[in-house]
């Protein structure tokens, strides 16, 4: 018995309906959208208040001191940089692989990349304490003789992240131009004015589409090595230091896998939210959710493998500091966080192996959030234990982060959420022209398959007839 394959999207959907549904979503979300906006604003208020205290009273309120000069701020920076990788994965890699199921969901994943980077960029500035001196990290000619140290991975970060931010914003913008033209053609009031400017006079002629296709392909080709380099360089912030737990060869691929993992989990979270807020059941379908969940599961297993490789290298490497640190993580003060990380990052993803759970939106929402909690713990467990148990025993201590620090980290989720929610309200979060392409090509290939099936159908029929005759 054969089971009919469930389609990623309704191939009979009318193109006009696609426009109507997506344009309506920008005007008329469910009330839960506004509730979420209010929650995000409240979260930002907490962070602003915490930053106000830190700004006026000093960094002591963040508990940052020797040996804990890095803590939650840097862990959050790594977390948000990691979150940004999913947009590139879904958009660029799947574009190059001609996986057309990405089309209804890649737009918000790309937007997520941009806003994650904007959120990540706040943390080094907040971490500086003296935020008014943030421009010192830029490589400008200084009459005070201050120059960035180009040998430092922190300077590499500035180059890599600014390149990634600008490239991902361009990638997002270019991919949106045909949709902005649709919005221009059907918009009213301030929206029409905004989209007229942003659509850049797009008419959809063959010259524009030809150049568009080439540009998008070239950008996708550059974004993939760029995304890998960005998180490799972020891992170099740690791996270049001769500190136990950080000086690890497998850190770059480990960071990249972790980044893709948390990004995919975030895509699932936002998938569920957008599907509900904007009534996108026809576009963000269960089969697409299933594919995203399977991708997340595969990446979770890569991440788990790299974790095991790291533990094995430390265990059999017999470096006393590294080994003691690993044992301390598993049995010491940080053990609850460490084991939560292992459970949430390596065990919980097995829920994604069950079809019924992959198709249950509330479960996927909760699981995806828990996966990202696990990934936040992972970053925290990279930063804090090493500084707590470095080579000098007189400095050993435990760092849990202050209320101010947690307040700012908490608010960063509100900041990201608010930027994202504003984006999906102002710009189409489902790519209209690409969904039309998806429908068009699938209808066409279905037609070709039908033709082949009809041809094949005549073949066995003849054989059967012949067989019966021979009998």
């Amino acid at each position, binding site marked *: 018995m054969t089971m009919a394959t469930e389609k990623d999207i309704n191939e009979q959907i*009318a*193109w*006009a309906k696609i*426009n109507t549904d997506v344009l309506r979503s920008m005007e008329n979300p469910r009330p839960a959208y506004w509730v979420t906006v209010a929650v995000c604003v409240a979260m930002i208020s907490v962070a602003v208040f915490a930053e106000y205290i830190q700004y006026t009273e000093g960094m002591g309120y963040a508990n940052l001191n020797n040996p804990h000069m890095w803590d939650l701020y840097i862990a959050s920076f790594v977390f948000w940089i990691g979150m940004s990788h999913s947009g590139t994965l879904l958009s660029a890699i799947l574009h190059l692989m001609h996986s057309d199921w990405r089309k209804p969901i890649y737009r918000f994943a790309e937007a997520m990349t941009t806003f994650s980077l904007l959120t990540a960029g706040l943390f080094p500035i907040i971490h500086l304490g003296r935020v008014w001196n943030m421009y010192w990290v830029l*490589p400008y*000619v200084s009459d005070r*003789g201050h*120059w960035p140290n*180009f*040998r430092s991975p922190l*300077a*590499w970060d500035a*180059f*890599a992240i*600014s*390149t990634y931010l*600008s*490239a991902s914003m*361009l990638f997002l913008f*270019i991919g949106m131009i*045909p949709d902005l*033209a*649709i919005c221009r*053609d*059907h918009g009213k009031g301030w929206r029409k004015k905004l989209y007229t400017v942003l659509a*850049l*006079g*797009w*008419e*959809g*002629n*063959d*010259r*524009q*589409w*030809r*150049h*568009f*296709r*080439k*540009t998008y392909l*070239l*950008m996708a080709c*550059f*974004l993939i*090595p*760029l995304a890998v*380099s960005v998180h490799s*360089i972020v891992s170099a912030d740690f791996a270049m230091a001769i500190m136990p737990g950080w000086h690890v060869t497998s850190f770059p691929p480990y960071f990249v896998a972790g980044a893709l993992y948390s990004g995919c989990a975030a895509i699932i979270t936002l998938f569920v939210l957008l599907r509900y807020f904007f009534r996108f059941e026809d576009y963000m379908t269960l089969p697409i959710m299933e594919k995203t969940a399977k991708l997340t599961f595969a990446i979770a297993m890569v991440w788990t493998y790299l974790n095991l490789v790291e533990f094995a290298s430390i265990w059999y490497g017999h470096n006393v500091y590294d080994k003691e640190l690993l044992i301390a993580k598993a049995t010491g003060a940080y053990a609850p966080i460490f084991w939560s990380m292992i459970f949430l990052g390596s065990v919980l993803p097995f829920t994604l192996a069950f079809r019924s759970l992959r198709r249950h939106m509330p479960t996927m929402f909760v699981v995806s959030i828990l996966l990202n909690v696990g990934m936040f713990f992972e970053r925290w467990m990279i930063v804090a234990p090493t500084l707590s148990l470095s080579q000098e025993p007189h400095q050993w201590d435990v760092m849990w982060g202050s209320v101010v620090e947690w307040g700012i980290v908490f608010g960063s989720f509100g900041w990201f959420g608010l930027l994202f929610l504003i984006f999906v309200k102002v710009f189409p979060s489902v790519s209209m*022209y*690409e969904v*039309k*392409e998806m429908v*068009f*090509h699938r209808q*066409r290939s279905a037609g070709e398959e039908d033709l082949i099936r009809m041809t094949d159908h005549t073949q066995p029929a003849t054989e059967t007839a012949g067989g019966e005759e021979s009998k």
Partner: protein
Amino acid sequence: MSKHRLLALFSDFEEAHAAIADIRRNVVPGVTVDDVTMKSPIEHPDVEEVLGERPVHIQKFTLFGAIFGVTFGFLFLAGAQATFLVQPQGGKAVIPLPSNFVLMYEMLIFFAVWLTFFSFLFLSGLFKKRSALYSEKVSLDQVAIMLELNEAHTDPIKDLFQKHKVLEIREEVIK
């Protein structure tokens, strides 16, 4: 003889392609496929088969951007590092190649991406004032053929479009 511009709207690609194929076969003498512009809500499937190969030069700008990024990146970094001569280097190289390679890699991508973007803006004919014939249905679900031709050819072309079930024809005199 005045010059006219026509915009014909079709409900699907098949009919529009068939109409262009007729123009290609010179069904209307004096009108060639080079005069044709096709507009559609999605990237044309098989557009080259219908209109023929038309050039795209963006990749050349991308290559230029990449090469510029690498060379400028190195020169910028080396120039900056050379001014460090006044600072103690602790016996390390003034111009450290390994870290410069990392940064040159980033600048290669940075300039390649920006040059690609700017070349797209200039080469794809954006920023032009939209023609009065522009139809919003092209961004919805219809395919359009636009062509410029002499007045004498307008009626035969309209007949050709009618044969291919055109939905609507718009016309303007351009000079």
